[in-house]
């Protein structure tokens, strides 16, 4: 079985190699003039007004948490999907219980407002993402 996967490794190496070749090509083809102004951080032509490492909206963190929970559960459905036909009713009820837990969690997150990305109230100081 691992024999099928060997070509994939070759392809991964080739794909990264191709990216590197393109970069090298432009390094030789293009003229590098450089200059301080060109290498400064983009701020629409103004002097830099703001840091980029600053506090971010907590919503991104919430989305990440929701993702971890639900994507892992989605991955658990794949093995069941493969054997659903042979498994018949016993397996269907088993996965039904699993999905019921998943849906309960989903409903809980929804009711708690974990899926809301709008700030709680206008003018409360939080910024939109």
């Amino acid at each position, binding site marked *: *079985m691992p024999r*099928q*996967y*060997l*070509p*994939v490794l*070759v*392809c*991964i190496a*080739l*794909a*990264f190699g*191709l*990216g590197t070749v*393109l*970069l090298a090509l*432009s*390094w030789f*083809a*293009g*003229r*590098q003039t*450089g200059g*301080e102004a*060109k*290498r*400064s*951080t*983009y701020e*629409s032509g103004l002097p830099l007004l703001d*840091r*980029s*490492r600053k506090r*971010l909206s907590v*919503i*991104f963190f919430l*989305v*990440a948490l*929701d*993702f971890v929970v*639900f*994507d892992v559960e*989605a991955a658990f*459905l*794949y093995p069941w*999907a493969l054997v*659903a036909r042979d*498994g*018949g*009713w016993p397996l*269907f009820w088993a*996965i039904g219980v699993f999905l019921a837990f*998943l849906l309960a969690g*989903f409903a809980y997150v929804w009711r708690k407002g974990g*899926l*809301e*990305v*709008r700030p709680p109230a206008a003018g409360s100081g939080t910024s*939109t*993402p």
Partner: protein
Amino acid sequence: MSWSWLDWLREAVGQPQFTLLFAPAAKFLVAIFAIFLLIAYLVFAERRLLGFLQVRLGPNRVGPWGLLQPIADILKLLVKEDTIPNRAVRWAYLLAPCLVVAPALVIFSVVPFGPSPTAPGAPRWYVTDLNAALVFVVALASLGIYGIILGGWASNNKFSLLGGLRSAAQMVSYEVPQGLALVGPLMLAGSLSLVGIVEGQARLGLWFAVPQIVAFFVYFVAGVAETNRNPFDLPEAESELVAGFHTEYSGVRFALFFLGEYANMIVISAIAVTVFLGGWLRPFPSVEALAFLDLVPGVAWFFLKVFAFLFLFIWFRGTFPRFRFDQLMDLGWKWLIPLSLANVLVTGLVVVLVDRGP
């Protein structure tokens, strides 16, 4: 010496290393070259089509009907200066574009472009037929997020960082319904291999898009969102974020991000065609009266369907306005996920009730 290069070649083809390493590598390079060409002309087609949709001409000056425009664009991007901002985190800034492009290209190593030939020894239309191809595709497709968020963070520019974060939040949200939508066809086919899924549709005599219309819809909407295309192109909302995660990128690095986005469009189309629209099968594969359609080779059917999807992508861009961020999240979490979960349950119920092999 009686050895000519032909003898050497015949000898080499017989070696086990050849079938294991060199044949896949050569096939993959050919496929990648075709994909590059396709992307170059996809960009051109997009600019022309958008031109027509907006009642203007689009690029038509370089070569006849503007057909050499992509070549000019590529040359321009190659000779542009490759700037690295002083404040950027160098290694991550340099690595990010490759991380976006490479996974999208590797996916093409498992996509079957055409039917397997009946004659033994004849070349097949895929590089390798993994038994877990669908999981492999989903896994690699989500790797592209790393490149985008790494590029946004490494640029050390607030526009880039916000664009990268938005992009990550969006792609991560739509990955869940996308993964769930694929469970339905999987249940019908009973196989994770892409070749197996197409063969499952041949056995059923019906494209999975018909019994799995809900999953098909969810998959495609999530796919458009995954590629950051209109109407989900918030990461690059130029009125708010300049150019999003690739604000600081120039020259060939920008081209690599661009290449990644278009390669991902083709990936989404190719997987949608393989899983839902019968891959290389002709329309209505079980209707005998349409057998004359088999005169068109399977590869042509495959690419015809892929082109239809690519046209849809461009059409969307010419038609829909951009979503707001909260609308985007609502659509993903409150509509597509419940819809795809319901589809999984109903499909499971039907499969167990009917208990009939396709």
